[in-house]
């Protein structure tokens, strides 16, 4: 059974897939010519009809977001692409941009034309030097080819596109923190409303979209909304990138219609690490509540994952087998959230700190069974009490691991320490490379 649908990844196996020549050879920038001959409102309609939803985690309908931009308001509009891929486990936009930055640029031009923006930005994380090179070069090549700048393709549309490189702050993946960062401030989230569509970059109407969302636009324009909507499930249309990592025989990227299951993906990836079995996994990064082997047949679309108690998120499927200590895993994620909390909101700043203290004790076999309730109490006190969702993300692995693996926490207390051998979970445990 072939359930994969390579669209974004269709030409990644060509050595020059990242060049203008390579992209054009495979039909690149044809959708742009088609789009610039269309009425901008018609493009927004087309994207709405396709059912495309935000691929950065939240799943908000992309066309609807574009439709929120007030038109005829005599204000500058901005498009900002969120390429600050940092959610633990998430590794789809980075390989996409390395293999084909032009598909993003084509999407940026079409989206900017649709929302009537003459200035667009790509905010990329700073820890990926070669990806920055590829995107920078692609932008320069697009300018040289008359695809950016003044009077694009002679159609009278002007667009400036600037690559803005971050500097190592996870919080800048949150769209309002990203905007503050892009304006030259510390990256801290803003209170909403007003939403970016009304007051975004420089307090002007702004669309912030994920890389994969914008990169999906050229194919929708080229093939039509119906083509896109023919893939996926009832409310989760289209194809998307699923990223499998961890204790899996062959980790990697799988582009499939929304609604595929982890069981199907694991089969294609050659199974869980030989001789081991699945223990827990994340459907969409560490901020999405974890699942177990009881969830192998959950349809990986927005509704299916939500109905099972988690979130589709970034489709970052991190697989952990039975050698992995869940307390250790959760402690490490919690240390991450503590480190990345921007400090603006007290519940998140203080709460993540206390969560680390409690989890460290538990992992070391110290503390008491009551600490499990304390963890849940702290989670309850930080969730939904901050400007952004970072604290909600921090609570997810803790609450879900206690739901499925409470006994393992208690085992640490009985044992006076962690009952697992960390060496057994390493990839080189069996290869004799240690």
């Amino acid at each position: 059974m072939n359930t994969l649908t390579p669209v974004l990844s269709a030409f990644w196996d060509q050595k020059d897939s990242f060049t203008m020549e390579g992209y054009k050879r495979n039909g690149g920038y044809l959708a742009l010519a088609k789009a610039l001959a269309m009425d901008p409102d018609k493009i927004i309609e087309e994207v709405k009809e396709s059912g495309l939803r935000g691929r950065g985690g939240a799943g908000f309908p992309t066309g609807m977001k574009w439709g929120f931009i007030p038109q005829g308001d005599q204000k500058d509009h901005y498009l900002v692409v969120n390429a600050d891929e940092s959610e633990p486990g998430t590794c789809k936009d980075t390989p996409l941009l390395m293999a084909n930055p032009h598909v993003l640029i084509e999407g940026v031009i079409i989206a900017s034309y649709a929302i009537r923006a003459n200035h667009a930005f790509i905010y990329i994380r700073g820890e990926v030097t070669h990806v920055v090179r590829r995107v920078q070069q692609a932008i320069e090549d697009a300018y040289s080819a008359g695809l950016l700048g003044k009077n694009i393709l002679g159609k009278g549309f002007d667009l400036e596109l600037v690559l803005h490189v971050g500097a190592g702050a996870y919080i800048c993946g949150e769209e309002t923190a990203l905007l503050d960062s892009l304006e030259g401030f510390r990256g801290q989230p803003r209170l909403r409303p007003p939403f970016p569509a009304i007051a975004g970059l420089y307090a002007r109407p702004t669309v912030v979209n994920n890389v994969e969302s914008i990169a999906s636009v050229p194919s929708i324009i080229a093939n039509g909304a119906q083509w896109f909507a023919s893939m996926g499930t009832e409310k989760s249309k289209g194809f998307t990138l699923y990223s499998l990592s961890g204790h899996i025989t062959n980790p990697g990227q799988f582009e499939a219609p929304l609604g595929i299951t982890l069981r199907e993906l694991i089969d294609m990836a050659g199974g869980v690490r030989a001789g081991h079995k699945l223990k827990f996994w994340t459907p969409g990064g560490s901020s999405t509540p974890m699942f177990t082997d009881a969830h192998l047949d959950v349809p990986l679309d927005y509704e299916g994952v939500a109905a099972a108690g988690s979130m589709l998120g970034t489709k970052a499927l991190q697989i952990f087998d039975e050698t992995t200590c869940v307390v250790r895993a959760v402690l490490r994620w919690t240390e991450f959230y503590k480190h990345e909390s921007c400090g603006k909101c007290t519940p998140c700043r203080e709460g993540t700190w206390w969560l680390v203290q409690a989890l460290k004790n538990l992992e070391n076999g110290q503390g008491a069974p009551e600490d499990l309730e304390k963890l849940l109490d702290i989670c309850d006190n930080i969730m939904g009490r901050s400007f952004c969702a970072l604290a909600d993300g921090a609570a997810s692995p803790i609450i879900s691991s206690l739901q499925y693996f409470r006994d393992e926490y208690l085992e640490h207390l009985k044992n006076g320490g962690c009952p697992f051998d960390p060496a057994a979970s390493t990839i080189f445990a069996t290869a004799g490379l240690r």
Partner: protein
Amino acid sequence: MNQPISSPYSDKDLAVMDSIVKRYPRTRSAIMPLLHYLQSIEGYVTETGIETIAQILSLESAEVNAVATFYTQYKRKPVGQYHVGICTNTLCAVMGGDAIYQSVLEHLGIENDGVTDDGKVSVEHIECNAACDYAPVVMANWEFYDNQNVESAKDLVDSMRQGNPPPPTRGPDRLVTWKEASAVLAGINDGLAHQGVQAGDPTLLGLKIAKNSKGGE
């Protein structure tokens, strides 16, 4: 810029900084690329650099400092010519990142954020670097060294100290220095974008399976 900038930087560097400011509709947005650019000159963010950016953007130096101290990629003291980041976020840590991190620090005799005496190598543990299908991941000057193990990582830092590091797994034909990489992050094109693979094997796995299955139909 109303007044001439008084700083020890060369006219060429000041001209580049001016061109960075001109990229943006509003000048303050240039703070981050300017800080990256400073690191390409001096290797880290100096007080002089802060003062210069403040002058260029007509800000208080405290405002520039506030930004510089928020982001972990801006260093307040020199790092090595090759700055190594070892991912110890959960997935890489479990897959071997913790063992790699401990072994490399022991091997070099330094602590987290430390620099070897010869100034060649510095090490920090990093968060998820968006390459989980290549775990365990080690970065050097923010270039990818995929699928590492304890021995390969030790060999990597040894080769850096000897001045002949291997090229990144997915990156240009040679590992650029920290300062050179910082210029790229400031948006200065070094002309190396065409070098290196377009994708590694894990990136292509789904595509390969889709093609094979189509061929078999």
